[in-house]
């Protein structure tokens, strides 16, 4: 019997301690709220004073309030450009909790601040480039795959649209109507997240190439149709007059003449494509945009985004020059 009473007493004592620690936490909550109010009023010194009141925890004691208070203090100092004090506040945390990643990252960021600006950017660039590079490789891969698929699709759609076979023409019209009339993002979602419920599960890369391929086939289809119909009707008649079939005339005479006219709008489309691949980041594919986004969310460092912008610009610039070159080559017969 005595034994049981002892057990109950121990349990009660434990509950009491638990309640006490809860009350303590409530106190700190109020304190944080007050300091936030003071900060909002612009009284940073007052806010800091309150935060300082949170004592360092004894070993084994609950530590959340202490860490939060010191990190909040560090952020206030940092916002006041008092980098040394901010680092000191972080180090208070680190002395007790050397593994605290928030404090460590913040100290690293603050120390970077003390270095000259270009040095920081350089260091960030070196740090981020491998991840961004991998993302950029995926982006380029995606662009190249789509660039191989969509012109073929576009050509078929264009020929279908001007076909005398009603059903084919109607189907191609419908295809364009659908893929041009709905957001690419929606199409990607449907293919990646929607198709599995119909029993078709695709890898992010496959889903991305299919989505982008279909979408760009629709756009290129209209561009190619326009180019084909812009070729002088006499060309088709001349081809027919020497006995060519419709298919031969298209393949040998009409379509080769569209290449030069196609290059400017198709170049436009492909440059839009490079940027549209960023949408693919939403279907779990780590390409350039996703890589930059991840870095930004980890380090709160805008350099990652700036670097991604530079890489996108480099890619679009390369494509621009390639297309200008091809356009020149394709139209060489027009020179006198």
């Amino acid at each position: 019997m005595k034994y049981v009473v002892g057990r109950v007493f121990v349990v009660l004592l434990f509950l009491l301690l638990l309640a006490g620690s809860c009350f303590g936490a409530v106190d700190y909550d109020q304190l944080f709220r007050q300091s936030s109010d003071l900060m909002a009023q612009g009284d940073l010194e007052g806010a800091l004073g309150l935060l300082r009141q949170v004592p360092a925890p004894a070993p084994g004691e609950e530590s959340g309030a202490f860490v939060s208070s010191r990190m909040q203090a560090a952020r206030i100092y940092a916002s006041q450009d008092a980098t040394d004090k901010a680092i000191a506040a972080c180090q208070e945390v680190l002395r007790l909790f050397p593994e605290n990643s928030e404090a460590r990252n913040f100290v690293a960021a603050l120390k970077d601040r003390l270095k000259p600006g270009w040095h920081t950017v350089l260091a960030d660039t070196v740090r981020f480039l491998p991840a961004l590079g991998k993302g950029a490789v995926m982006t380029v891969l995606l662009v190249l795959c789509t660039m191989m698929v969509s012109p073929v699709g576009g050509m078929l759609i264009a020929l279908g649209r001007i076909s005398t076979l009603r059903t084919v023409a109607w189907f191609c019209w419908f295809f364009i109507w659908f893929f041009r009339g709905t957001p690419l993002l929606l199409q990607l979602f449907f293919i990646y997240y929607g198709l599995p419920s119909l029993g078709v599960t695709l890898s992010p890369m496959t889903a991305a190439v299919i989505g982008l391929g279909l979408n760009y086939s629709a756009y290129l289809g209209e561009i190619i149709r326009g180019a084909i119909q812009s070729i002088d009707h006499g060309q088709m008649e001349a081809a027919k007059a020497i006995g060519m079939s419709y298919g031969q005339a298209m393949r040998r005479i009409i379509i080769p003449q569209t290449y030069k006219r196609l290059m400017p709008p198709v170049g436009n489309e492909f440059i839009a494509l490079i940027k549209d691949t960023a949408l693919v980041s939403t279907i779990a594919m780590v390409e350039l945009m996703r890589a930059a986004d991840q870095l930004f969310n980890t380090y709160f460092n805008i350099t990652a985004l700036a670097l991604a912008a530079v890489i996108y610009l480099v890619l679009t610039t390369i494509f621009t020059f390639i297309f200008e070159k091809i356009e020149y080559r394709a139209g060489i017969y027009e020179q006198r």
Partner: protein
Amino acid sequence: MNSAEQPLLKLENITKRFKDLTAVNGVNLEVAAGEKLVIIGPSGSGKSTLLRSINLLEVIDEGTIRFEGCEAGYVTRRGKRQPDRPEAISALRAEIGMVFQHFHLFPHMTVLGNVMEGPLTVQRKSCDQARLIAIDMLSKVGLSDKRDVFPATLSGGQKQRVAIARALAMRPKMMLFDEPTSALDPELVGEVFDTIHTLADEGMTMIIVTHHMGFARELADRVIFMEGGNFLAQGTPEELFSKVQDNERIRSFLNRLL
């Protein structure tokens, strides 16, 4: 019927309508092998439409076309007259060369490439054979030195001669010329006429639509005056041009041109 009597081309009751307009109105025509026929008449009289109908570039509404005695271009299926299979139409076109007012050279091919295209793609000749034919045809029209240039660098007269060579490369049995000199500067007309003349001297059967009366008079075995989709008059050049006194319409037309 023996082949000397059988006309190369026989048109019966050819009628072509565009909406309200009857461009060709029940025309009958026989062209013997080796004959040089010139069709004249005011613009809009149906000359070009008639020519294009022969080559099946226009789908006619009524009438029959016989080439070498065979009915060509149309079949009757389920009581309805409709264009023949594409292969049959292409086969007929391959035997009838056509030269257009605006040349319609293939701008993305060299001059040689233009002339080779028919033998190469349509007749499926080897590249070497097609090249030999093309070189031969280009020397015939006097443009051997322009073989490797693109059409954009040629003068109008040169372009039209290339177009003639391109048609000839198919070894057609008959040539149709649709106002071959109307798009040319006056000083370039002569070279094209000379080329056509050479062809005529070789015995090529041809129908020429033109506005050049001097040329018609010089070359034609027979001249047809066409207006409003009908043949108003036909005969040898001497007959037609002496009939000028009889027919008011022809007289006023010729007076305006000469």
